[in-house]
């Protein structure tokens, strides 16, 4: 029996079938609901590994220790011992293979990040000796007079 009701029904079913087939090929196999449930955990699992494989660029002070022992020792015995070498020299990545040398930044802007005087008595900034960059030997690099690794002024 031919029915004008059944015919569109078949069309709808075929369309649904096609969508399911297409979905099978488009959606990655590891796409699913994981630990955090439907609301927060619906994702492609292998993406977690992709993020975990991201390249580490900042290697911290202990990495520099063996090859630049003089700088390390002098820095660690100074008031600047809290500052990471890479904050001033940029990320080590695979130095000395790549890049063979790290940048040396002698700009005043590097030092005044901490030493530009700001009148904020209630913040920790007040505990760092501040200078007014416009008054304190303007136009000259700070490192012509101060040692960036060991700026201590005992004996001045």
């Amino acid at each position: 029996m031919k029915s004008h009701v059944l015919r569109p029904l078949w069309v709808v079913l075929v369309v649904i079938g096609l969508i399911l087939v297409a979905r099978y090929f488009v959606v990655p196999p590891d796409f699913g609901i994981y630990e955090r449930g439907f609301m927060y955990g619906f994702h492609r699992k292998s993406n977690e590994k992709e993020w975990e494989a991201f390249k580490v660029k900042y290697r911290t002070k202990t990495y520099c220790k063996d090859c630049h022992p003089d700088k390390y020792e002098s820095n660690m015995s100074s008031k600047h011992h809290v500052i990471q070498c890479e904050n001033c020299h940029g990320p080590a990545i695979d130095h000395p293979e790549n890049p063979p040398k790290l940048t040396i930044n002698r700009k005043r802007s590097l030092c005044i990040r901490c030493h530009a005087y700001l009148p904020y008595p209630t913040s920790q900034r007040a505990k760092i000796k501040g200078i007014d960059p416009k008054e304190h030997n303007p136009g000259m690099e700070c490192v012509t007079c101060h040692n960036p690794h060991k700026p201590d002024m005992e004996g001045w």
Partner: protein
Amino acid sequence: MRQTRREFLKTITRGAIATALPIGAFKFLSPREARAAVASSNVRWGFLVDTYKCVGCGFCVKACKLENEVPYDAPVTRTWVERYVILKNGRMLADTPMGARDGFTDPKVQEQEVNPRDIAKAFFVPKLCNQCENPPCVQVCPVGATYQRADGVVLVDRSWCIGCGYCIMACPYGVRFFHPIYHTAEKCTFCIHRLVKGMNTACVDACPFGARKVGNLKDPNDPVTQVILNQRVAVLKPEYGTKPQAFYIGLDENVR
């Protein structure tokens, strides 16, 4: 119409199966998946910010951008530092030039000279993704491109994100933005590539003053957990019910 109890139950069962079948056709849970869905992890990453210790040097922002390949000169960043200057007359000034990538070196706030004698209190507040327990940004994703890991870290699948921007609108803390190169939603990953290697996040390592710390909140002996359990800490915008997992020491009511 009269119905026996047996007929009624039969109809109900048939109805339930009929509605469940089409849904079942879309997703079958394998036993392994089902187990993973209920098994809980013994790691939950959380963050601790001590606003008293921050001096506004901005090395955390610089390190984050270089570590995570966020274009350095674009006005977007995964973490930033805000400066708050509250005057004695109650007025509040706040700014974050370039997210404080180059630190705070100018006493002018919002292009305004401030007389030091008018300042009641002034401080710096580092901000980053709170890795909320109930992340609203994840709920709104229409394609499952952003998600929460078992350890609480919320990530974005760049190959799956369609760039609709719903998540950027949904985050009450404004931590999400479009990546200028990939044109996908971008956010702090808690440097998960470093955490899984046993390292700290890049911003934590870069901070000379210990204003930032990251720790496992499920480990009661972790120093960060100890502070959160034993000291007075606060979270940002608790009224949103997002349960942020970045805790602040010395949070001021003016900070939003």
